């Protein structure tokens, strides 16, 4: 009983899956586009857990972990689930914008409505003078800020 070896792979697998989740949420601003780092860590964690479980059940006389193994594995799967949920939420709220106009490209024309109900087109914004504190000035350009709205 006391001679059985510590099944470190189970604990390492659990630790790596926890690390993968923590890294993902700590770096969400950067990783919402690149979540592959965490995914690779989860694959590594799965490999460690599976190999640890094999040792625990295949060679129970040599290795410990028959009780800890399933618990750590379930927790690891749970972390993976939370990670997947985070990735799907990020995809919903932060569109990848792969086809957003790039620097040097033409800004797509559009027509919207201002807060008084008047139609406003981009071409108009680029050519119409805006009233300012010192009279009115021809615009040098327009900054388009897309925001989520509904504050």
């Amino acid at each position, binding site marked *: 009983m006391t001679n059985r070896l510590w099944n470190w792979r189970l604990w390492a697998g659990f630790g790596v899956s926890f690390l993968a989740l923590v890294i993902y949420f700590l770096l969400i601003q950067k990783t919402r586009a690149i979540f592959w780092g965490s995914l690779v860590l989860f694959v590594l964690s799965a490999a460690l857990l599976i190999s640890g479980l094999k040792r625990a059940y295949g060679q129970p006389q040599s290795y410990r972990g028959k009780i800890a193994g399933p618990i750590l594995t379930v927790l690891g799967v749970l972390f993976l689930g939370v990670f997947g949920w985070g990735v799907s939420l990020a995809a*919903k*709220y932060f569109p990848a914008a792969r086809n957003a106009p790039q620097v040097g490209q033409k800004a*797509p024309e559009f027509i*919207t409505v201002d807060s*008084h109900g008047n139609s*406003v087109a*981009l071409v108009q914004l680029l050519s119409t003078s805006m009233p300012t504190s010192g009279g009115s000035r021809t615009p040098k350009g327009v900054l388009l800020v*897309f925001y989520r709205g509904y504050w």
Partner: protein
Amino acid sequence: MAISADTPEESRELIRKAGLTYPLLSDGKAEAIRRYDLLAAKAGIDGRDIAGTAEFLVDTSGTVRWRNLNETGPEEFMKAAATLQ
């Protein structure tokens, strides 16, 4: 110019509450938002289609001179705006 999928009424409310001095544009059907590939489908309250956050600096020829798809500070924008003639 700030653009969202909010209605003109909601924009008026926001202008009043926040004391904004620049116009807010309403893109209720998310047409402009789609054209700029910024649609966050059903991500709004009541499952509305809304815009993801992004900024584009457009010069008078209609060309994008600078853009920002992340939520960063204004420093980069100020640099790009200084190059406009």
